[in-house]
C-alpha cells in the first residue's frame, strides 16, 4: 500500500523535542500544501497532538518522500530533523497503515483507550480535506480507519474504565490535597484536552473552575457551557495566587508561565501547594517551575508513568482491539490489491456489455421491432444479467488471485481471452 508515515511521538521523543516540531492549527494548511507541492508526494495529512507529530503521505517513491518531509517539517522553524533522527520514526506500506489504524484506535496512545485521539485524527483529516491534500487513496484509508476505530471502541472493552489524562490528574491532585472539595481549578486555554481534564476535576469535587484564554470571548463561551467562570489571561498572576490546580493547554509557541511568575506568587499563596498539569505541546510552563518547592509540575510525558498501571490492566482488551485492527488491515490490503486489477475487470465488463448491447440493439431494431417498450427493456435487462453471470467466474477468479505471484500472467490471459486491448496493461501497472 502506498502510504508513508514519518514523525515522533511520546514513545520516541520527549516533550521538549516534540514541541519544536508541533504544527499549530493555523499553520496546518500551508504545511500541507507545501508537502503536496514537493515532488513525489501526491496526498498528505498531518496529525499534531500533545503526544505526537506525524505526517501521513502517499508517496511516489519512499526515499523521496522522507527527504521532502524532513525538509518541509524541519525548515519551518529552522531545525534540522536529521540531527534528531533517533527521535523520529518512519514506516511505509502495510506497516504505515497498521500504525494509522493503531493510532486512531487509541492503541498507541499514552493512555491506551483514551477517546480524544479519534477526534484528533478526524480533525487532522478534516484539515487535510479542506486544504485539498486528501486524494482517493488516503481518503479511503481514512474512512476505513475511522470505521475500525469505532469498531474497536464498540466491540472491545478498551474504552471502559478509561484512565484519561483527566482521571490521572484527579489521582495526582488527591495525592497532594486531602480532598478536592475546597480546591480551585484554573484552566488556561480552551483546548479540548484541557476542558476534559477540568471537567474531571470538577466532577471529582473541585469547588470552582476558572477559564482564562487569549480570546476572552472563547473563555466566556466555554465557561458558560459548563457553569465555570471566565477570567482574562492578563490576570494570570492573580489567578496563580488564588487557585490550587492549574491546567494549561494553550496553543502558544513559547511558555506563558515562567519560574519568576511562580516565585512571585508563592508568598502570596502562603506556600500552599500548587499542582500544575501542562498538557500543551509546545509546553506552556517553563520546566524550571517544577524545581520550585511546593510546586508540582506534570507535563504530558510525566502523566504516562502514572497511567502505566491502568494500561497494564487493559492489556486483555487491547489484545482484542489489536486483533480487530489486524483484520481490518487484511481487508484493506485485499482492497488495495484488488485496486490493481480493477482496470482490467472494468475493461472486460465494458467490452462484454458493449458487445451485448450492440447485438440486442440490432435484433430489437430488425426482427423484434414489434415489441413494446416494456418488452424491449426486459430483453435488455436479461442480456445484461446474462453477461454479468457469464463473467462472474472470471471476475471472482481475478479478484481472489490478485495478490498471487501469478496474478500478472492471469490478467494477461484474461485480457487475451476477452479481447481487451493492450492499453489496459499500463493502467494495471
Amino acid at each position, binding site marked *: 500500500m502506498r502510504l508513508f508515515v514519518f514523525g515522533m511521538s511520546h514513545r520516541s521523543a520527549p516533550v521538549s523535542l516534540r514541541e519544536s516540531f508541533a504544527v499549530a492549527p493555523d499553520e496546518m494548511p500551508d504545511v500541507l500544501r507545501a508537502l503536496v507541492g514537493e515532488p513525489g508526494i501526491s496526498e498528505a495529512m498531518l496529525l499534531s497532538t500533545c503526544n505526537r507529530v506525524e505526517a501521513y503521505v502517499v508517496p511516489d517513491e519512499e526515499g523521496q518522500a522522507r527527504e521532502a518531509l524532513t525538509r518541509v517539517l524541519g525548515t519551518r522553524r529552522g531545525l534540522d530533523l536529521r540531527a534528531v533522527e533517533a527521535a523520529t520514526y518512519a514506516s511505509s506500506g502495510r506497516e504505515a497503515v497498521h500504525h494509522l489504524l493503531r493510532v486512531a484506535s487509541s492503541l498507541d496512545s499514552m493512555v491506551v483507550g483514551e477517546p480524544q485521539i479519534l477526534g484528533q485524527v478526524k480533525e487532522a483529516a478534516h484539515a487535510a480535506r479542506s486544504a485539498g491534500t486528501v486524494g482517493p487513496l488516503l481518503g479511503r484509508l481514512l474512512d476505513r480507519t475511522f470505521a475500525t476505530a469505532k469498531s474497536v471502541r464498540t466491540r472491545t472493552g478498551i474504552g471502559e474504565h478509561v484512565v484519561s489524562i483527566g482521571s490521572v490528574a484527579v*489521582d495526582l491532585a488527591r495525592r497532594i490535597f486531602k480532598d478536592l472539595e475546597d480546591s480551585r481549578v484554573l484552566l488556561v486555554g480552551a483546548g479540548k484536552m484541557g476542558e476534559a481534564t477540568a471537567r474531571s476535576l470538577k466532577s471529582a469535587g473541585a469547588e470552582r473552575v476558572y477559564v482564562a484564554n487569549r480570546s476572552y470571548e472563547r473563555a466566556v463561551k466555554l465557561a458558560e457551557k459548563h457553569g465555570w467562570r471566565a477570567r482574562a489571561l492578563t490576570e494570570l498572576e492573580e489567578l496563580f495566587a488564588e487557585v490550587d490546580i492549574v491546567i494549561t493547554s494553550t496553543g502558544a509557541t513559547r511558555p506563558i508561565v515562567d519560574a519568576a511568575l511562580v516565585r512571585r506568587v508563592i*508568598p502570596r499563596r*502562603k*506556600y500552599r501547594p500548587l499542582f500544575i498539569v501542562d498538557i500543551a505541546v509546545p509546553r506552556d510552563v517553563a520546566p524550571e517551575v517544577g524545581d520550585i518547592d511546593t510546586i*508540582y509540575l506534570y507535563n504530558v510525558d510525566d502523566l504516562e*508513568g502514572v497511567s502505566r498501571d491502568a494500561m497494564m490492566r487493559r492489556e486483555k482488551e487491547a489484545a482484542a482491539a489489536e486483533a480487530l485492527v489486524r483484520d481490518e488491515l487484511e481487508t484493506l490490503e485485499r482492497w488495495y490489491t484488488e485496486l490493481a486489477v480493477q482496470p482490467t475487470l472494468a475493461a472486460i465488463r465494458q467490452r462484454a456489455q458493449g458487445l451485448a448491447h450492440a447485438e440486442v440493439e440490432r435484433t430489437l431494431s430488425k426482427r423484434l421491432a414489434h415489441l413494446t417498450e416494456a418488452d424491449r427493456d426486459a430483453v435488455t435487462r436479461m442480456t445484461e444479467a446474462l453477461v454479468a453471470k457469464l463473467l462472474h467466474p472470471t471476475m471472482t477468479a481475478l479478484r481472489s488471485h490478485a495478490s498471487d505471484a501469478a496474478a500478472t500472467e492471469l490478467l494477461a490471459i484474461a485480457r487475451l481471452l476477452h479481447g481487451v486491448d493492450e492499453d489496459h496493461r499500463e493502467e494495471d501497472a
Partner: protein
Amino acid sequence: MTSNLLTAAAASFGLAAASFMAWLVRYDERWRARGAWATFLGTLLLLGATVVELLVAVTPALPLGPRVLLLLIFGVCAVFLTSRLRRDLPLAGPVVAPLAASITFALAVKATRGSLPDSTTLMGAVTALHIGATLLGFLLFAPAYVFSVLFLDQEYRLRTKTRGSALLPSLLGSEQLAWRLVFVGFPLYSVGVLLGFVWQERAGPVSGWRPEHFLAAVSWGLYAYLTARRLRTGWRGRRAALVMQVAFVVTLAAVLLYVMR
C-alpha cells in the same frame, strides 16, 4: 575505646544525615550516595563499638539499657544497608541516618561521662513539671516527625513522578497533622525547657552545663523558628519538613541524654 568508636560513628552518621538532607533539598543523587557510604562507615564503627562493649571490654562503658539501645540501632542500620542491596527505599536513608546520629551521639556522651549523680529530686514540683511538660512535648513531636517523614515520602514520589501508594496520606493531610502536633507540642516543650533552665539556674553549681541542655536549647530554637515562620508567612513544604526532622532528632538526643544520665 567504646566512647571513641561511638563518637566517630556519631560523626559519620551526622555526615550521612547532612548528605541525605542535601539530597532531599536538591534531589542530586550524588548526595544520596554519599549519605549511604557515610551510613555504611557509621555502621562499621557501630559494629566495632558493639563488639568491644559486648565481647571485649572487661568493664563495659555502658549500662544495660544503653547497651540494648546500641544493639538496636546497630540492627536498624544493618537492616537498612542489607535491604538497600535488594530493594531501593529512597526515604529510608534520610530516616535512619539522623536517628542513628542522634542515638549514637547520646550513647557516645554516656560512654564518655559515665553516670551522673541523681539531682532530679532537688526542686520537687518544678522538676516534675519540667520533666512532664518536656516529655509531653516530645511525645507530640514524635508523631509530627512520623507525619513529616510521610510527607517527604509523598513529596518525593510526586517530585520524581513515581507511582503513589494507597497507604500514604495526601501531602497536605500529613503536613497539616504534623503542624498541628507541633503547634500543640511546642508550648508544652517551651514550658518544659524554660522550667529546665529555671531549675538549672537555681541548682547552678550542682548540675553545671551539659550537652542535653545545649541540645534542648537548639531543638527549642528550631521549633521556635518553625512555628514563628509558619505563623508569620505560612511557610511549609519540603524545606520546612526537613527542619522539622532535624528539630526532632536533636530533641531525641537531648531526651535520651536526660533519660540516660
